[in-house]
């Protein structure tokens, strides 16, 4: 955090000054470690084992915050007797379907609800990264459940959790993670001692956590700990994601992602959502508790925002215009399709996949096989010049005279040359004022897409073709200003907020969205950002003039709420858990919730409210159900649906690991997404043979002075000067073993690539003793490429393509490699070296190791049918 989010880290330092104890878990000693109380060097890829150890410590010693756990989580809920835990089946849960590499979730359900919504096959959910939809709401689950308030029932969630993690002992943590038991216990003790009624503990991760084949389950494990300790929805608690880019949160909320529409509405699927009603019901699950009951209003209002007058209740608001998914259309599938010649044109909008995406060679070969490529950026980046200066030109794999891709480079406007909002990592929208005009031909994306759309519509005017109706009927009428006819960003923000169509009045919040065509809302979760016709994101009341919540700086979704699920900061009766930790509470005399923040609860619903039988939607949530976006109002220790690789996190080894899984017969995540394509090879891992050909673990992360693929930092003189060279950090022990010299050269080899780097021998990395062996880890920054003021080989070239099954994010925080002294070969010899490694490792390009480790028994998947998984 001190390295990659330095200014955010000031708050950790403030907390430490006030007595907070800071633990830092990282494979590499960084500035964060230097400022922490305790540093835990961990084997990369083993976080579930470490955190699972903490869960086991909590449950074995009964250190959970029992009152919170009983009232606010699903600990007491009884699970189906059909459920078989991974503990009892070598690492596979019940319901695994080897044909699709995914689970049938029927047996994971609560008792009596095995065939209810939420059950069923998850193959489609896996193909379409359906897990991403849960960023704004939980997965569906049945209404009435069996509970055991004593937590003694053998099939209640509490007992299942206890058995599941029973083997995650301090000794096992040592065997898997390479951490000494004393250090582990110091962490577990401090975490539990600093949680409860009077105190809260906070878990912070950087989104490298998501770049694993079990990334979602990493975060789930952290969330289970925080729920057990009562650290969710309370001040000083939480699971905080440190996202990596100025508006990456905004890019998910108003997604430019294949499987989502704004506000986490799913892109329709051809088989599951042929009609508007199918689509809406798949989102709202009729009869379901919670706030998704209003999904029809959000969906209809989005389509009204898209197609304006053409969208009417009679034509289902032009639902028929939406393109349909048939499977995985993610960025990695696309790149393989480019190599196979299936894609004509590609837009890159401030993105540099030639350096920033996993398997750089696949990225560059894909781009070299397009008809046309449009690159919009501030600088001439590698993804624009791969055909001229890329590493494949040096090896002869790309010959400019034979490369057909037509490339348009269009200069972009910088952040000070346009106005608009970024959404930062706490869901806070902040408006930027424009300072100057962009230079020359540089334009904003707003300009480019508005005018591109205008021109497409002009060219199609009068077209009789049905496929052109969606473009011709599009509501595409934005006011413009200035010499270049720049569209008015505030007008777009107003449409995102939503408005009443008859009067034009901006909506005050999403509760005002209607399903009858009288409102248009571009992104329902952002409704309120333009309340009263005022740009709330532009509010800048100085922090010094506000309380510590600073509610008048910018605007946070939803409803300017700064902390989600903050009803949990009060006890079931609505009283603060303690005076120190008061945040939101029930004011009996006023008959409403009040406090420091906007309450995340219906503001006049009393803690004593109990839903009438048969209630659905928000009315079905009791006055003490704080998790209002969850289908049962509870925090989920156990996820009966919505997480595709298991209801509980389970330690699997990374897709490439030198270590045999010490906990289960199953080696890796059985549901991880792999691609059989000749360009993609996977290094062998035990129990496969020849894993010793790639004996070392490498991991990558950021330097303070650079930014992702380097397009905004290797091009900037002061930053380039501060970090001028690609390098690899190795421990003194590994340097001796591999014959590497400090400040000399080394090259690293995987089944995909060989790259070179300067050697930095440092005790920031330590060899770890794991299951009786010594494991060496190397660390690399991933910022370098062949353009800019400072250049170097790209670390991402070393990675292959293996994805997390929930969100289709690649495993690019860990791989295996070999390291050798000296510079890498060039020209044809480079390919020969990689070929030789592949031959020795028995790697056939395009072949991937079996999803289920040989010898692990697979039970019957269960009935399943074609249920829609987590909907």
């Amino acid at each position: 955090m001190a390295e990659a989010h330095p200014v955010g880290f000031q708050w950790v330092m403030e907390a430490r000054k006030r007595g907070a104890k800071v633990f830092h878990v990282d494979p590499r000693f960084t500035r964060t470690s230097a400022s922490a109380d305790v540093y835990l060097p961990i084997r990369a890829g083993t976080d579930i084992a470490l955190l699972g150890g903490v869960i086991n410590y909590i449950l074995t010693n009964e250190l959970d915050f029992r009152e919170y756990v009983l009232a606010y989580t699903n600990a007491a809920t009884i699970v189906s007797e059909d459920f078989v835990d991974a503990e009892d089946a070598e690492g596979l849960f019940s319901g695994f379907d080897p044909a699709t590499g995914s689970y049938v979730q029927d047996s994971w359900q609560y008792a009596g609800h095995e065939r209810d919504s939420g059950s069923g096959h998850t193959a489609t959910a896996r193909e379409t990264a359906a897990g991403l939809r849960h960023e704004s709401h939980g997965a569906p689950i049945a209404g009435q459940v069996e509970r055991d308030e004593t937590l003694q029932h053998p099939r209640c969630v509490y007992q299942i959790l206890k058995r599941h993690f029973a083997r995650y002992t301090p000794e096992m943590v040592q065997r898997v993670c390479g951490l000494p038991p004393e250090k582990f216990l110091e962490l577990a003790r401090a975490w539990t001692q600093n949680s409860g009624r009077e105190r809260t503990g906070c878990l912070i991760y950087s989104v490298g956590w998501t770049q694993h084949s079990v990334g979602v389950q990493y975060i789930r494990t952290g969330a289970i700990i925080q729920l057990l300790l009562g650290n969710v929805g309370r001040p000083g608690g939480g699971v905080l994601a440190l996202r990596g880019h100025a508006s990456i949160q905004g890019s998910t909320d108003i997604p430019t992602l294949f499987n989502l529409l704004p506000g986490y509405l799913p892109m329709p699927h051809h088989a599951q959502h042929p009609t508007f009603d199918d689509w809406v019901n798949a989102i709202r699950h009729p009869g379901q508790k919670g706030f998704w009951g209003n999904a029809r209003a959000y969906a209809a209002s989005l389509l009204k925002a898209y197609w304006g007058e053409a969208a009417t209740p009679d034509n289902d608001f032009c639902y028929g215009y939406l393109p349909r998914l048939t499977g995985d259309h993610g960025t990695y599938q696309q790149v393989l399709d480019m190599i196979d010649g299936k894609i004509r044109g590609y837009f890159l909008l401030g993105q540099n996949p030639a350096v920033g995406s996993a398997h750089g060679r696949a990225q560059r070969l894909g781009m070299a096989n397009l008809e046309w490529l449009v690159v919009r950026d501030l600088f001439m980046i590698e993804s624009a010049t791969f055909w001229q200066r890329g590493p494949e030109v040096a090896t002869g794999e790309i010959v400019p005279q034979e490369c057909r891709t037509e490339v348009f480079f269009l200069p972009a406007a910088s952040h000070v040359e346009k106005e608009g909002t970024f959404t930062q990592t706490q869901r806070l929208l902040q408006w930027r004022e424009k300072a100057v005009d962009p230079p020359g031909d540089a334009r904003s994306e707003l300009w480019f897409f508005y005018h591109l759309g205008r021109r497409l519509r002009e060219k199609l005017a009068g077209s009789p073709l049905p496929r052109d109706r969606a473009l011709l009927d599009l509501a595409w009428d934005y006011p413009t200003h200035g010499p270049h006819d720049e569209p008015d960003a505030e007008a777009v923000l107003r449409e995102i907020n939503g408005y009443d169509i008859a009067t034009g009045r901006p909506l005050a919040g999403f509760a005002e969205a209607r399903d009858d065509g009288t409102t248009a809302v571009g992104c329902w979760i952002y409704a309120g950002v333009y309340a009263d016709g005022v740009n709330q994101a532009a509010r800048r009341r100085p922090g010094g003039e506000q309380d510590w919540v600073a509610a008048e700086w910018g605007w946070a979704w939803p409803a300017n709420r700064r902390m989600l699920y903050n009803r949990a900061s009060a006890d079931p009766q609505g009283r603060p858990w303690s005076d120190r930790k008061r945040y939101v509470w029930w004011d009996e005399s006023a008959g409403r919730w009040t406090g420091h923040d906007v309450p995340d609860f219906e503001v006049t619903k009393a803690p004593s409210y109990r839903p009438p039988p048969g209630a659905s939607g928000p009315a079905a949530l009791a006055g003490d159900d704080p998790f209002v976006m969850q289908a049962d109002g509870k925090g989920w220790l156990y996820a009966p649906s919505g997480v595709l690789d298991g209801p509980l996190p389970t330690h699997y080894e990374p897709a490439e690991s030198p270590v045999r899984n010490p906990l289960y017969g199953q080696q890796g995540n059985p549901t991880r997404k792999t691609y059989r394509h000749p360009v993609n090879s996977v290094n062998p891992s035990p129990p496969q043979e020849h894993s010793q050909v790639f004996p070392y673990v490498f991991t990558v992360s950021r330097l303070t002075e650079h930014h992702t693929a380097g397009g905004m930092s290797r091009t900037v003189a002061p930053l380039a000067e501060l970090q001028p060279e690609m390098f690899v950090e190795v421990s003194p022990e590994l340097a001796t073993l591999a014959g590497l010299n400090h400040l000399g050269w080394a090259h690293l080899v995987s089944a995909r690539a060989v790259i070179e780097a300067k050697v930095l021998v440092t005790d920031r990395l330590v060899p770890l003793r794991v299951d009786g062996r010594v494991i060496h880890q190397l660390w690399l920054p991933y910022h370098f490429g062949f353009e800019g003021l400072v250049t170097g080989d790209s670390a991402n070239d070393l990675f292959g393509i293996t994805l997390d099954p929930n969100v289709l994010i690649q495993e690019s925080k860990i791989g295996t490699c070999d390291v050798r002294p000296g510079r890498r070969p060039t020209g044809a010899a480079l390919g020969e070296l990689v070929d030789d490694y592949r031959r020795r490792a028995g790697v056939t390009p395009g072949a991937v190791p079996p999803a289920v480790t040989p010898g692990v028994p697979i039970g019957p998947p269960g009935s399943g049918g074609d249920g829609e998984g987590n909907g």
Partner: protein
Amino acid sequence: MGLRDVLLGWPVYRQLTGADPLGRGAAAQSARSAALTPRTEAADRVARSVCPYCAVGCGQRVFVSGNQVTQIEGDPDSPISRGRLCPKGSASKSLVTSPLRQTTVRYRRPYGTEWEDLDLDTALDMIADRILAARAETWEDVDAEGRPLNRTLGISSLGGATLDNEENYLIKKLFTAMGALQIENQARI
């Protein structure tokens, strides 16, 4: 200048005898540095902005003279950053004023070996034509069972996460209307 003036003007003398024993202020000042004023003072206007790098979202004040950014500093009013910027945020002025920035359209024709110039309006028109051609060649109306698909898989897009919300909104809206669904973002990566 007499010897006395030289002595009195000598920074060490001033440091030892004046009110600045550490030599960090008045004692270290020369006639030239005494006459300097901060760029921020001469600015015509100040825009309130946000750092374009990581997701902490530090506040920035962008100082402008004419149509030139002359300085970017942390915004002390921000309750998030309290005026601080890290090395990247502090380098924002160098980012936006970098001489390496491309300011004209560049074009590489198929099988070309060099970049060429191209007019922005022509480029936009050529891109629009290519989109329409790709749609026409790869359009899918319905699946094998006659259910609607309404799409093209011939077009892809990958966006960075320094795009504004308003930009992402228009990008998704336009691509969706043209039937292009292979739209992705750094958020997947």
